[in-house]
C-alpha cells in the first residue's frame, strides 16, 4: 500500500553508512546500484521498506540499505519475509538471496512463498556458485562444472529458476543481468508495483569463484544476438540488427530471421506477460544459448489475489460477525458455571 511521501527520495538516500564489503568487480555492486535507483522511483517512505536476506555474499545486501533490514540465516529469508509482510502488509518487503540461499537450503520456503503469492519481491542473485563459502557448486551450476566440491565436474542437472517458479504457480518472473542496471531498475519498479510474489533472477558474476560464467551471453560482442529483452505488448525481436525474432512452430518456439523465408515483423510473436496459462512463459524462461537467445525483462506478470490480503479480509469478516469482542468475552464463552 503506497503512502504519501513528503519529499521525493534520491538513490543516495538509500545508501547506508556501512562500507560495502563485496569484492571489487563483483556483480553485486551494480545490483545494489539498481535497487537504490529503483527505490528512488517508487512511492514508499524509506521507513516502510524492509530488506530481508539469508546468508551468502548477496545476503549481506541489507547492511548496505538505509532502510529496515534483517540479515537472517541461510535459506530462511522467504519465511522471514513472509512473516514480516503478513504481519504488516503496509511494508514493502524485499528478499535478497543467492542461488544457494534460495534454491539449495531455502528451496522449500521459496516455492511455498511463490505458491502462496505473498506480496514480496525476491531478488535472486544467480552466480551459479556458493560465493561466501569460497566456491562450491550450487543448484544452478551448469552440469559438469568444476568447483571445489566437484573437482571432476558435477553430475547433476541445474534448476532453472524461472521453470521452478512456474512449477510453483509463480505469477511474476523476470530476468536481468547485473551489469544492465537500467533494465534491472525497470524490472524492480515493475516488480514492486505488481502485487504478489515477484521473483527476479539476476545473472550475476562472481569474479573470484566463477568468473565469466554468464559471459557467453553477457559478452559485449555477442550480447545483442544472445539476449532478447521482452517487453509486454511488443514483438519478440532481437539481434544486433534487430532482425531476428521468435515464432511458434507447433508447440515450440523457433528463432527466425525477419526478411528470410517470407517472414515479416508481423509474424513475430508479441509478448503477453499477463497471460494466465504459463505454457509460453515456461518456454520463454527456458530458452538457452546456443539454440535460443536468453530472455530478459519481465517474462510473466499475472494478477492474482495475494495471501496477506486474503488473511486480512478473513479477519475483518470474522470480526464483523463474531460475538466475541474482547478477552473477557472469550474466557466466558461456551460452558461456564458459578461456584
Amino acid at each position, binding site marked *: 500500500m503506497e503512502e504519501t511521501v513528503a519529499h521525493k527520495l534520491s538513490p543516495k538516500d538509500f545508501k*547506508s553508512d*556501512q562500507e560495502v564489503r563485496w569484492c571489487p568487480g563483483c556483480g553485486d555492486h551494480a545490483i545494489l546500484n539498481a535497487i537504490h535507483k529503483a527505490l528512488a522511483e517508487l512511492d514508499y*517512505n*524509506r*521507513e*516502510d*521498506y*524492509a530488506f*530481508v536476506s539469508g*546468508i551468502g555474499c548477496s545476503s549481506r545486501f*541489507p*547492511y548496505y*540499505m*538505509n*532502510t*529496515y*533490514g*534483517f*540479515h*537472517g*540465516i541461510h535459506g*530462511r529469508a522467504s*519465511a*522471514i*519475509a*513472509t*512473516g*514480516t*509482510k*503478513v*504481519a*504488516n502488509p*503496509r*511494508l514493502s518487503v524485499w528478499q535478497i538471496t543467492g542461488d544457494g540461499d534460495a534454491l539449495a537450503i531455502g528451496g*522449500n*520456503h521459496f516455492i*511455498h512463498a511463490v505458491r502462496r503469492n505473498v506480496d514480496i519481491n525476491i531478488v535472486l542473485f544467480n552466480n551459479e556458485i556458493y560465493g561466501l563459502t569460497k566456491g562450491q557448486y550450487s543448484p544452478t551450476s551448469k552440469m559438469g562444472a568444476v568447483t571445489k566440491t566437484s573437482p571432476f565436474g558435477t553430475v547433476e542437472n541445474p534448476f532453472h529458476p524461472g521453470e521452478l517458479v512456474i512449477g510453483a504457480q509463480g505469477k511474476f518472473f523476470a530476468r536481468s543481468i547485473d551489469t544492465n542496471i537500467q533494465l534491472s531498475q525497470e524490472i524492480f519498479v515493475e516488480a514492486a508495483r505488481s502485487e504478489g510474489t515477484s521473483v527476479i533472477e539476476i545473472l550475476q558474476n562472481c569474479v573470484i569463484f566463477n568468473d565469466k560464467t554468464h559471459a557467453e551471453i553477457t559478452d559485449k560482442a555477442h550480447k545483442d544476438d544472445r539476449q532478447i529483452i521482452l517487453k509486454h505488448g511488443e514483438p519478440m525481436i532481437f539481434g544486433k540488427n534487430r532482425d531476428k525474432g521468435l515464432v511458434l512452430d507447433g508447440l515450440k518456439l523457433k528463432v527466425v530471421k525477419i526478411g528470410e523465408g517470407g517472414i515479416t515483423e508481423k509474424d513475430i510473436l508479441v509478448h503477453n506477460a499477463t497471460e494466465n496459462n504459463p505454457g509460453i512463459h515456461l518456454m520463454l524462461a527456458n530458452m538457452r544459448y546456443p539454440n535460443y537467445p536468453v530472455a530478459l525483462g519481465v517474462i510473466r506478470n499475472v494478477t492474482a489475489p495475494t495471501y496477506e490480503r486474503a*488473511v486480512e479480509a*478473513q*479477519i475483518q*469478516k*470474522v*470480526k464483523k460477525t*463474531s460475538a*466475541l*469482542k*474482547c*478477552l*473477557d468475552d*472469550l*474466557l*466466558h464463552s*461456551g*460452558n*461456564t*458455571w*458459578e*461456584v
Partner: protein
Amino acid sequence: MATKREVIEREEVVIRFSGDSGDGMQLTGTLFSDSAALFGNDLVTFPDYPSEIRAPHGTVGGVSGFQVHLGHTEIRTPGDYADVLVAMNPAALKANARWLKPGATVILDSDSFDEKGLGKAGYTIDPIEEEKLNDYNIIRVPITTLTRQALDGLGLDMKSVLRSKNMFALGMVYWLFARPLDHTIKYFENKFKKRPLVVEANRRVLQAGYNYAETIEALTPTYMVSPAEIPKGTYRNINGNVATAWGFIAAAEKAGLQLFIGSYPITPATGILEELSLRKEFGVKSFQAEDEIAGICTALGASFAGSLAVTSTSGPGLALKSEAIGLAVMTELPIVIVDVQRGGPSTGLPTKTEQADLMQALYGRNGECPVVVIAASTPSNCFHYAFQAAKIALEHMTPVLLMSDGFLANGSEPWRIPSSKDLPSIKPPIVKEGHENFQPYARDPESLARLWAIPGTKGLEHRIGGLEKDALKGSVSHDPLNHEKMVRTREEKVQRVANYIPKQEIEGDQTGDLLVIGWGGTYGHLITAVNEMRKEGYRVGLMHLHYIKPLPENIETLLGRFKKKVVCELNLGQMAGYLRMKFQDHHYHQVNKVQGLPFTVVELIEAFSKILNED
C-alpha cells in the same frame, strides 16, 4: 423411576472410558467431565490414545481411553487406579485391567465379547478369569444390541447406529453417578442444529442407557460425589492447549500488539495452532507454515515487524527450530516458542507424555545461546505461564521457551476464569519516531533489554542479523572483546529476568526431612503424594519449579532447609543434572520414569518412603 438407590458418598471417584479408537471415547469422557464440572465437582481428566488414527479394530494397540477423576475435595491428578471402567470391547479390558482398584465396577459391552473380539484382544480363556476379576463388580450389558433396539425405526444406517453405542454407556454412567442428562442433550442440539435426526438418536440412546441402568439394578451401589468446596467464582473446563492459546491472546491484548503464530502441526501441540486459527475475531494471524523452520522464521519476521510472535511445536519440531532460536537470541527479538513434550527420542511415542526435552530447551543450540525457559504445571495454568512467557519475551526482548507436555495439553480441569483487568500490564521497550540518538542495541540498564524500533517508524531505520553485533550500534563486529562482551551480556540479560519473577515457594512443610523437587506436568501427582506423606506424619515439602532459566534467586536457600532432596521427572534425570550444575553442594536423589505415562501417586509415595528410610 421408583427404584430405591443404595448410595455411597465418596470424596473422589475415578472413572475410565475405554474402547476402540473409533468408539468415540474421547467425546464420551469429555461430555461426562463437562457434566461433572457443571455439577460442581473438581476434576482432572487424562485422554490416552494410540498414534494411529484408527488402529486395527479390536486390538489392544487400538484402544483409546479417557480417564476422569472427580471429587468433592481438590483433585490434582486423573487418578492412578479406576473405580469404574467402561470397556466397549475385550481389548479395552485387556489394556486397562491392571489399572483397576480392587473390587472396581466394570461395565462391558457383552456383544463384543464374542470369539472374534476375544481373539483380536489376544484372550484365550475367559477374560474375567485371565484378569483375575472374579471378585469385581462385572456388569455385562449387550450394549450394541440395546443401542440398535433403541434406534429401531428411526431410519438410521447401521454405521450411525453403531456410532452411538458410546451414548448408551454414558447414559448408564450418568445413572451411576445420579447426574442429569440435560447438558449432554444440549450439546447435541447445538452441535447438530441442522441434523435433528442425529440429535434424536443420541438423545434416545443416552436415555436408554440411563433407563437400562436404573432397571437392571446391577449398578447399585451408586456413587454420590458432592460438589467440591472450591473458591467462589465463574468456572469453565479447559485443557492445556486451549489455555496456552488464550494466554497468548490475553498477552497480545494487554501489550496492545497483534498476535502472530507461525506453526506446523504436530501431536500433541497442534491444538494450540487450531485454537488460534479459530480466533480471527481477535485479529490473530495464524500461519500454518510449510515446516517447523518456516514456523519460527515467519514468527521472527512478524516479531521484527512488531507483533507478539509465537511458534508452537513438540520435541522433533523444537529440534528443527534450534538454528532459528539462535537467530532470535542474536537479534534479541521477542518470541515465545512452545514445546509440548511427547515421548522421545525421534518420533518416539507421539501421543504419550514425557519430560525429556528439558536439556534440549536449555542447551540445544550452537554457541552460547541463552533463552528464558518456563514450564506450566497444570492444564489451566498454561494460561498464566503462556501470558508470563509473552510478557517476559516482550519486556526483556528475548526468546522464551514455554514447556508443556502431552499430559497438560490434552488433560483438562475446571478453571476459575480470571478477569482481563486483573492481568498485569505488558510494556515492551518500543521506541517511537523522534527518539533521539537511536542505537538498536542500546539497552535498558536494569533489564538489559535492547530497544525495539519497528519497521514503519520514521527515522529509526536499522539492520539486525545473525552475525555478532556491535554492543551498541548493532552493526556486524568481529572484534574479539566485543564478542566476549556480547556473549556475557546475552547471558546476563536472561539471568536478570530473575529480578522480575516471583520467588520460589514451597508447598507443604517449609523445612523438614524431604524436599520433593519437580517441574512441569507432574505437579498434580507430586502434590498429592506430598500431602499423603504429610498425612502420614512425614515432614515433606514440594518445590515445583516453573521458572527454570533463570531459576528464582532463593532456590539455594530453600534447598538448605531440607535434609534430603529428591528430583522427580519423567525422563532419566535432566532437571537433577541441571540442579547439580547450578547448586553443586546439595545431594539429589532421583525418581525417574520413562514410560510415556504420568507418575502414579502410589509409586511416588513408595519411592519417597524408601528415600526417607535410607540413611
